[in-house]
């Protein structure tokens, strides 16, 4: 199991996606993409997959898996928690 705090994920998103907001402004279930969201786009999605692999050692190779996992910080945290640890390959 990979236990990752919400604050850690907020920081990861704000830093990697160069957002001009404070990490605490992103809610756990705020959508990351699409209308009413944080405003991320496809480049951010790729950036987050790279950052997740670099920081947690978990590879996301499948676009469908990425879409599911990256809906919100909540979905990302739950998805990461289901992985069995660094080095896991999807």
């Amino acid at each position, binding site marked *: 199991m990979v236990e990752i705090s919400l604050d850690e994920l907020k920081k990861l998103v704000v830093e990697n*996606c*160069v957002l*001009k907001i404070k990490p605490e402004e992103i809610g756990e279930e705020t959508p990351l993409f699409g209308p009413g969201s944080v405003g991320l786009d496809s480049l951010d999605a790729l950036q987050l997959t790279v950052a997740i692999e670099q920081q947690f050692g978990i590879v996301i190779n499948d676009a469908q898996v990425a879409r599911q996992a990256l809906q919100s910080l909540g979905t990302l945290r739950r998805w990461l928690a289901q992985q069995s640890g660094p080095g896991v390959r999807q």
Partner: protein
Amino acid sequence: MSSTSTNRIVVTGFGAVTPLGLDFPTTWQRIVAGDDAAAPVTAFDVTGCRCKQAATCSLPDLPSLTPKQLSRLSRASRLALPAAREALAEAQLLDDHGRSRLSQLAISVSTTGGGMALGEQFLRAMLLQQRGAGQFFRVARYQAQNQVHDLQQHLGFRGPMTIVANACASGANAIGHGADLIRSGARDCVLVGGYEALTELIYVGFDCLQAMSPDRCRPFDVARNGLMLGEAAAFVVLESEPHARARGARIHCELAGYGHGTDLHHLTQPHPSGATAVAVIRQAIAEACCGAADIGYVNAHGTGTPLNDSSEGAAFATVFGEDGAIPARVRISSTKAAIGHTLGAAGSIEALFAMAALQSGQLPPNLNVRQPEPMVAANLVAVGEQRTDMRATLTVNLGFGGSNAAVVFKRYEAGGVRGSATSVSKRDDRVSVAICGMGVVQPSERPQRMKGLNEASGEHAVLCVDRAREPLAALQNEARVRRASPITLFMLAAAQQALASQPALRRDRLGIVAAFNTGAVVATRRFFEGIVKNGQRFASPNVFPETVFNSPTSHVAAVLGAAGPCYSLVGDDAVWVGAIHVAATWLENGLVEHALVIGAEELDPIAVDAYAQAGWLPPRGRTGFVPSEGAGALLLRRAESKNELRIVQLTDGPTYRHRSEALEAAKECLAEFPTDVLQCRTAPHNWFGRYEEQLPCVKDVTLPYRGDAFVASAAWSTIDAAELARRERCRILLPIWGLSGQCSALLLATE
């Protein structure tokens, strides 16, 4: 603009070096036979990349060069030189010694990486705290203008250079710009083309975007999964019909139409409808005075990425569709599965394929398709197809940053007038554009200290823009530019100032020409630093697109809603005048109602390393060179009266190879300008100050100094001179000394 008998543009020579051959005939023979050049990358290490293949060239032998000369050529020049030579030879423009018969020959070329492999070696050494021999050579030779200097030196011509860096559409833009120069009467013969040498930075960039196919590039296949990168060089000789006929040249075909525009949808994604592609294809077809039904073959951009091919297919369906389908008589192929996506060379080599198809009737096939996209299923060219009844062919390029371009070639039918051919290609420097807005982003007056990345480079005084001050602080919250390099903010702020006095102008008829020397160097350093420190696997997809030369221009266009054409030009300070020349051509042709011309630079520690290694900074630097940054923008429109503040004459060129030749080049540059005008001094702080004193002039004035920021400095000088001209109601001549080999000048007037 229409192609009448008096202003037709004809093609009289072409040459290429590609992964399929060291000359164009070999390439053509192999591509129509269905060969492809996909192979493992060996030019650099790709261990950390997801993909491992590309289409790379064998380097041609250059027996006429000495080993020393050869050692000074970048890989990019090794590809470009034989291709340009082949084009000039084919056009019968080389003498018995392999030198150009035209001593003055304008050149319009494209590239995205220039000699970036040298730049990478420099960056890596600085990041790893290495010193040693060769660093000066690398930093002095990687920029694109050096490859053009190589062509000029080894093929024996001089003249103005235009280097278009519009990403994947650049090659078509370089050809189109050459055509514009001829059509406007400014030139009667132009060498046009593009080149690209595969480099690690670009390869890793596309790899991290997951834009490359891990197996096979399959353009227009429903299961396509990415592109294959490639490298190539391709050149074309364009001439006015009278010039070509006067010298008895063999004419291959007519370049009949050119369309270009900007898709503002997203930096790396086309609009799904392909609306901008539709507009530029229609523009090119209309200019060619033909209809969509006349186009027999289309060389598609067809990268093999899911989004490009669907958007492009939609555009073809809109342009060529009849009763909901594209008629089978329209043959379409992408040649990128065979030779790869050659980026800055793509538009040029693919134009050659479209011309060769028109001439020979053979068609280059679309390889690797198992299940075609339904929209183009009836149109994709198979191996061995021939079609000899075509009147016209089309090539389409859709680039990063939304740069879209299309070129139409028609069969040549004699009938035009004969002109005269001299040993000097014609030059007409007169323009008439009014300056109706200006904007400046300048650095703080107080120098600050900036360290290089390499400890040996030390800490030096630089002049930086205060990014925390308005309007830059507010612009950083603009969603489109949140990832952008600072240069984008400088350009945007300067552009908005220039537009402020004209709130009602039509943004859909606004074009942008931006020019840089070093461009987005912050993003480039950050991206490559990530590769060196974290490995190729963890290269940043968010940073790579910002390293591309035309990204800042594309962002500015998107934020301003400027839907006209956008060019990003590369060169030294003197490219500023070239940028104004492009804008003047667009205005004269009615392509746009207004044009923004922006010169900009940004500073980064790696720039301090570069200047320190080049010996420009203390303690070795004996001049007062102070690195600086910022932007300047002019808003231009066609002049309507002599009371307006106008640019009335300009010369972009000539080039020189050594700084000691700059004075002669400047005298040549200024020879056609009047002498009874106020002449500006722009270079008292650098090498050219002592030359400037030797230029003949009646009265001079020294302009304010804001540090050395290359193209931004040229823009600031123009704005200072323009304000002086307006205040004093006089004519002012502004010479611009390029730091790496070009002089240019412009004349401002108001009465």
